[in-house]
């Protein structure tokens, strides 16, 4: 099932005018505040009536301004997880998650998936932010939606709670078979969860494609923030070493990261920030950094500042890596498209928070 959407909506001086499709898996809507992300999912949910457009999920049309079709919110079969969990305060957790469920529905799968078994008899008022958000997700899933809309579900949580809830979202992506539209302006969440990325700017689609392609595109880096720019690459756990390191097999060679808890063979997603990747003309030796990948330059992009973003293709499958170096270094190395290079990634550059299992991409 997939979402097809075309919208045009005006409010005040702002115009939303865009179209995109979201396949199964997580599609992240990324953009700055006020870019129109929330309006898009509110339009899908029927909470905002867009002036013009067509919205369909797997061929089921929810809105079509050409024929005047408009399906009210409660018949849309959308699961919506709001930034503020919006649990019903006068109901227990059990009643909350049962609210949108069919009478015969068995909550045990969803309850296990989100780890809320111990909370069922509590009242929303006594839950922490992270617990409330997990209950809200369970409640949305129990209504058996055909699409899950998540509006910055982690934005109101502190980093520790965020890190605790991300694995549940990753499991959800892998186990619940439905398209998930995930609004966020946190790059780590996008890199960890999303399969597809749609970058929204001023009410328009700036770029749309697989998350690994878009995040490693130097041309888009200034829209996601140069400082946060970084590529996403896929890897598998190869070995756990006794010295506290885990060896991953990634495109372009082995990578060593601080010990991970996963099993050998488990697929992971790594985010490597451009500023943590150094470049070398020769295979470096006599260095403390363990992670070296061989590749060749595919793009060079200099911005207005002193920095240059370089895209490398590493390994046989053409995984993309981004490196940010100074213009002076780029000139000194005489970096040109097509030339072979070695990328040096410091071990610590792969933060655990940025590692997530890869879904059915």
């Amino acid at each position, binding site marked *: 099932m997939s979402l097809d959407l075309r919208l045009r909506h005006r409010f005040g001086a702002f115009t939303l005018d865009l179209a995109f499709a979201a396949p199964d898996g997580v599609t992240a809507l990324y953009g700055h505040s006020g870019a129109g992300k929330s309006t898009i999912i509110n339009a899908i949910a029927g909470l905002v009536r867009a002036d013009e457009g067509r919205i369909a999920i797997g061929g089921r049309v929810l809105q079509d301004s050409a024929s005047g079709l408009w399906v009210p919110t409660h018949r*849309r079969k959308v699961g919506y997880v709001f930034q503020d969990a919006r649990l019903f305060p*006068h109901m227990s957790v059990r009643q909350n998650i049962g609210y949108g469920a069919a009478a015969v529905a068995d909550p045990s799968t969803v309850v296990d998936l989100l780890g809320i078994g111990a909370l069922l008899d509590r009242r929303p008022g006594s839950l922490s932010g992270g617990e409330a958000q997990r209950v809200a997700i369970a409640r949305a899933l129990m209504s058996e939606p055909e699409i899950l809309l998540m509006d910055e579900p982690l934005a109101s949580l502190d980093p520790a709670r965020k890190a605790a809830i991300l694995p549940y979202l990753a499991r959800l992506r892998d186990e619940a078979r439905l398209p998930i539209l995930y609004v966020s302006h946190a790059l780590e969440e996008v890199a960890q969860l999303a399969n597809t990325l749609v970058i929204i700017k001023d009410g328009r689609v700036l770029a749309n494609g697989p998350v690994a392609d878009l995040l490693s595109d130097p041309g888009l880096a200034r829209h996601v923030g140069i400082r946060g720019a970084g590529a996403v690459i896929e890897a598998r756990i190869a070995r756990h070493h006794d010295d506290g390191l885990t060896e991953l097999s990634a495109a372009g060679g082995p990578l060593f990261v601080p010990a991970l808890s996963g099993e050998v063979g488990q697929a992971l997603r790594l985010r490597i920030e451009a500023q943590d990747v150094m470049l070398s003309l020769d295979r470096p030796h006599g260095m403390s950094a363990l992670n070296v990948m061989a590749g060749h330059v595919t793009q060079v992009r200099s911005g207005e500042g002193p920095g240059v973003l370089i895209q490398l293709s590493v390994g046989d499958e053409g995984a993309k890596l981004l490196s940010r170096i100074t213009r002076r270094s780029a000139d000194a190395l005489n970096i040109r498209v097509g030339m072979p290079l070695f990328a040096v990634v410091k071990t610590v550059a792969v933060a655990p928070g940025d590692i997530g299992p890869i879904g059915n991409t």
Partner: protein
Amino acid sequence: MTGWLGPEEWQAVALSLRVALWATVASLPFGIFVAYALARWRFPGRQVLNGLVHLPLILPPVVTGYILLLVLGTNAPIGRWLSEALGIEFAFRWTGAALAAAIMAFPLMVRAIRLSIEAVDPKLEQAAATLGASRFRIFRTITLPMILPGLLTGMILSFAKAMGEFGATITFVSNIPGQTRTLPSAIYAFLQVPGGEASALRLVVVSVVIALGALALSEWLARRAAARLGLSEGRT
């Protein structure tokens, strides 16, 4: 209690309770509807409706009673039609006393309910809609339980006002023992005859007891409802 109160006094007390109860219960659905419309809907004439609801609060009660008499009296077209076609008679009946009390109490009821509806976060109702709940189910399962404390407050205020209503009642339906002589009318009547002070005083005591009892009951119910909502615990 019948021993302490004379038959005439007891009659006034029983009548007042009946009038106030009916006035409150019968106007409740209208009160909820009007409060919801004023709180949630934007429609032309909203301010007019708001003004109309509040009119009995600012008009002299006697004026309200006289207007009722003009509209619903035996010789008024609407009153005659109601009486002949539907068999509903208000003039000089206890039903008229209940109607007058309900209209005088209506602004208080609507205000209390409207405030509590405005306090319900529409975002919760949106969340319920995304979970597949129809408008009616949302009202029944989300809005209504959350406004329960305000609903109780509105009903108690309405009941208390109805118990004490005098001006509009005596103008509209007069002061007929057993039909329209409610507590205030009875107290007034007793004070007009020699030797009636003792009766009047007893009825005053009864009025105070009923009013305080109603207040205590509403406080207790509202607190219980609020505790059930879990509203005392804050959450971010």
